[in-house]
């Protein structure tokens, strides 16, 4: 009697299993066909930093060249934060901001220490380069390139 019960129980479990797979068969796929499409990047994602444009004057960034980020960077990845004072403006305008992404650990201290919130993380998740110098970004030039693209 126990054998018969076992057989019936086993057969029932097989049918349940087949139900699970056939439901999966007719459900939509969950994979992302990567080179053709990409998933949305999480807002918390950290790539290299980028300079934020000044909403009042799109020609310049928010950066006032105070040098806080350069001084606070634990890996000394930020170099040559330089700028000049343009005529008729109260604040300095950044002309150079070199970020050495090879030593940057995306800790975010520069973003936090910036008094004018001029820095934020970009979502550039697949930077490529053939030599080390390709990852020494000039964030001012990068900002201008972005501005032109818009």
């Amino acid at each position: 009697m126990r054998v018969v019960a076992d057989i019936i129980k086993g057969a029932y479990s097989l049918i349940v299993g087949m139900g699970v797979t056939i439901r999966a068969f007719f459900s939509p796929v969950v994979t992302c066909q990567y080179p053709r499409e990409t998933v949305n990047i999480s807002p918390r994602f950290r790539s290299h930093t980028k300079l934020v444009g000044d909403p009042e004057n799109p020609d310049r960034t928010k950066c006032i060249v105070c040098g806080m980020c350069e001084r606070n960077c634990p890996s000394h990845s930020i170099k040559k934060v330089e700028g000049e004072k343009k005529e008729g403006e109260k604040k300095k305008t950044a002309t150079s901001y070199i970020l050495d992404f090879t030593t940057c650990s995306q800790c975010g201290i520069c973003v936090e220490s910036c008094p004018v919130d001029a820095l934020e993380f970009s979502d550039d998740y697949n930077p490529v380069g053939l030599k080390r110098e390709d990852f020494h970004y000039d964030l001012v030039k990068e900002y201008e390139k972005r501005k032109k693209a818009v």
Partner: protein
Amino acid sequence: MCDTIINIVNIVGKEVVRTVIGLVGVFIVVLGNAIMLTWTERKVAGHIQRRIGPKEVGPFGLLQSFADSVKLLGKELLTPANVEKPLYFLAPTLIFVPVLVTFVVIPFDGFLQVKDINTGILVILAFSSLTVLSILIGGWGSDNKYSLIGAVRSVAQNIAYEIPLLLALLPVILMANSFSLRDIAEAQRGAWFVVYQPIAFLIFFVASVAETNRTPFDLPEAESELVAGFHTEYSGMRFSLFFLAEYTNMFIVSAIAVTFFLGGYQGPILPGVVWFFIKTYLLVFVLLWFRWTFPRVRFDQLLNFSWKILIPVSFLNLLVTGGILKL
């Protein structure tokens, strides 16, 4: 042109020409079926795992199998040292003989059959035993522990499952009163035999999954324990012959199940051959579905299931059917 053809037919005889044309057709069906099934298997696997499966080569990845076969054709035929050369070379060829022979007697339609032999099912069962022989030869000749274990398992499994296979077919043969596959298909004009013989159908289907070495009974080629089982040492075209034979065997067991239990080519409106292929591929889909649902059984479970459950039940079924027919 026409005269020459008629002359040739007169010289060699109509029967020979008919057989040759039939064999060419069988080759086309075998290759087309294997190419379609490899693609279908990967698609089914993909969708059951909620992926897409092959999609890059051709529309919906349909040309994927062609790309794979070109790759296999282009590969070097490696022969490992220390193999038993005659056996090693013979096995992939031998596995293809039963595949071609069994196709000869399968009725695709009332008129579409290469040759109607009045012991058709015996031919199929006798030749399908050759598959085991070639697996044994290949495993023995490879001089590899995994191949040998795979081959030994395959023999034990096939001996165990050939008995319920035959015992499940016998009640149908009793009811149709013939060994010829066409007669059996014709006998189901009123109702399919699966209505009278549901247990026999179930037993046959389970045993045929074991016969084709498919999951959950794929112990001869269990990849997690035996690398690839009996075809571990085979590469290139020799490997793809084993592969081709596996997919063709799936088609054959489904075709036999359709002919014996699901009315063969019988069906309304559509021509018989279309019905035959629809039913057969539905069963093949169930085989693929099995593979991506069930885990592999243990070896003692496999043999116990056959000797302790399938064989007694199919014997009982045969006795009851015989008794009822006698009354």
